[in-house]
């Protein structure tokens, strides 16, 4: 163990912690300690953890603010649902179909990430942020206009942008099945997502991101974040490296979206709006920019917090808002920081002296 680099040790601890959580939760489920409502939260939590990790790649490692991350989740969710529903008879094995759906979700989100990245990555700062917001909203509205069905002849798709057509125009054979019904979203999906798949997805995502960060490419990406001009002057291809980070981030969000979409039998595109993007951004910022472990912890805590406060009814979102503001103020304001360090000095006197 001693010969390992500090960050490798840190990462091993993170993975060990994840595995431990996985075992504990599985055992608790086996014993029936967790209630129905808690069990129902497990898959969404995994999805949001992956979302937070992937957004942290864009915001924390690449250093660009993205306000449209939920759009990629939406692409992943609906392409994953289409893949899963149309392969219902071709791939009967559920785990295999789930993996296929997540791969399809990741690939489609990745392709869109590339297409969106071409214009977006030319901009900087708040202008980049507003364009990602714009793309997120556009994706949501485009999905709302989709009518998709499947029968033995294959997929049927209509882009119903005037709102005049309905599912009958798809021309499905009697055995056909409608997958997406425009504004009503995906209905009648077979929910095949599982907690195991969620945990595996978290681990794979974390593995990919950590490997990227400590690779030559990752260091180049972080160099661009810290000083773009200096990075360019030592010969780093800015556009290429930013694109790598952006597409990877989009693809992982797509996989998370596919898992999320396959957790529910009904899903509307309106779910993947600006508010969801903001929710994930809050996880990333509270967890610490560029800190993957922080993202995981923040996503779990902040997703569970409103659910845990469900007993407080109308006050729960109010409390959530106050917690959010207070945490931001105490972790970022210099006054509060001084106060904290004074309090903690009593406990850590030996360290400070040394």
């Amino acid at each position, binding site marked *: 163990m001693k010969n390992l680099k500090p960050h490798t040790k840190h990462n091993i601890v993170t993975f060990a912690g994840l595995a431990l959580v996985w075992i504990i939760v599985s055992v608790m489920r086996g014993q029936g300690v967790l209630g129905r409502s808690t069990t129902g939260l497990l898959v969404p939590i995994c999805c949001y953890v992956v979302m937070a990790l992937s957004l942290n790649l864009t*915001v924390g490692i690449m250093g660009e*603010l993205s306000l449209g991350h939920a759009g990629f989740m939406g692409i992943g969710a609906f392409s994953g649902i289409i893949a899963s529903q149309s392969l219902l008879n071709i791939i009967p094995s559920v785990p295999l179909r789930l993996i296929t759906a997540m791969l399809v979700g990741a690939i489609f989100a990745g392709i869109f990430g590339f297409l969106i990245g071409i*214009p977006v990555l*030319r*901009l*900087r700062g*708040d*202008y980049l*942020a*507003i*364009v990602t*917001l*714009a*793309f997120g*909203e*556009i994706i949501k*509205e*485009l999905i*709302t*206009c989709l009518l998709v069905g499947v029968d033995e002849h294959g997929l049927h798709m209509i882009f119903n*942008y*005037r*709102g005049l057509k309905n599912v009958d125009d798809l021309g499905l054979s009697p055995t056909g099945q409608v997958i997406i019904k425009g*504004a009503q979203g995906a209905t009648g999906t077979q929910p095949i997502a599982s907690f195991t798949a969620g945990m595996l997805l978290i681990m794979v995502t974390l593995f990919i991101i950590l490997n990227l960060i400590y690779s030559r490419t990752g260091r180049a990406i972080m160099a661009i974040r810290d000083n773009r*001009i200096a990075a360019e002057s030592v010969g780093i291809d800015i556009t290429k490296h930013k694109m790598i980070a952006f597409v990877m981030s989009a693809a992982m969000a797509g996989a998370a979206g596919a898992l999320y979409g396959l957790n529910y039998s009904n899903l509307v595109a309106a779910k993947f709006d*600006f508010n969801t993007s*903001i929710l994930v*951004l*809050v996880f990333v*910022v*509270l967890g610490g*920019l560029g800190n993957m472990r922080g993202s995981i912890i923040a996503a779990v805590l902040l997703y569970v917090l409103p659910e845990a406060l469900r007993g407080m009814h*109308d*006050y729960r*979102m*109010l409390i*959530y*808002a*106050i917690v*959010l*503001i207070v945490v*931001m*103020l105490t*972790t*970022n*304001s*210099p*006054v*509060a920081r001084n106060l904290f360090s004074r309090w903690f000095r009593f406990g850590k006197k030996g360290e400070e002296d040394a």
Partner: protein
Amino acid sequence: MEFLSYLISGISLGSVYAIIALGYTMVYGIAKMLNFAHGDVIMVGGYISFCGMMYLGLNGWLALLLAMAVCTVLGIIVEGLAYRPLRQATSLAVLITAIGVSYLLQNTALLVWGATPKVYQPLIPLANADGQPNALRLFGGQLSISYMSLLTMAACIIIMVGLTMFTSNSKMGKAMRACSEDKDAARLMGINVNTTISVTFAIGSALAAVAGVLLCSFNPTLMPTTGSMPGIRAFTAAVFGGIGSIPGAFLGGLLIGVIEAMAKAYISTQLANSVVFAVLIVVLLVRPAGLLGKYVPEKV
């Protein structure tokens, strides 16, 4: 004629966006922060004027003044409590705090006023006592422009001109421009930066209250989430025109309103937002700092 009436409804909607965007852009210009709570101040303004009319029996104009006063105080309090401690923090930390403030305002409104939409009484009733629409008739009655639209356009132009004169001539306005350029240098020149930022927030919030009253007069359902979408549109408008620039926000607001109305009329109601955002993306690709924004090249 049809085209003209769409154009006019677009301009009057755009005027409301422009008023919101003016507040957005002033706050951005000086505090360099995206104030996501701005949209919710609009909603608070709407509710306060609604309460003024319903429970205090004020007439529309007095209720508007009341809403402006309350929102001004609200803006100063929010700035002092939530944003001032974060002056040295990263912009993302401020952004998340603003989102927290936005949630806080929305949920407080939800607790105080409930989730059921309130029916808002427009500032100028849409129809007069005889049941005739309160509107200016042109071309022998073929084109009618409601007095509410005229009022909104006039308010927007007056506010834009007033703000331009304020920032270019008054002492406080000059202090604002100095702060937006370089806070440390402004402080060395004896400008009280904190007061200046507070005043900016006060003006922005008062404008949001005006926008709230106008918005609810057009769209008479008032809910705790009423402000979010216009807030985002106005943010788009501010960026469209070049964020930080007052004429830019005015132009951006009008254009966004007109594009939205045209898209709804001629392309698709469902995709109206997408069309607006697509135009925004194209504009930003051609002019990366917005229509009237100044592109500042980096120097090494």
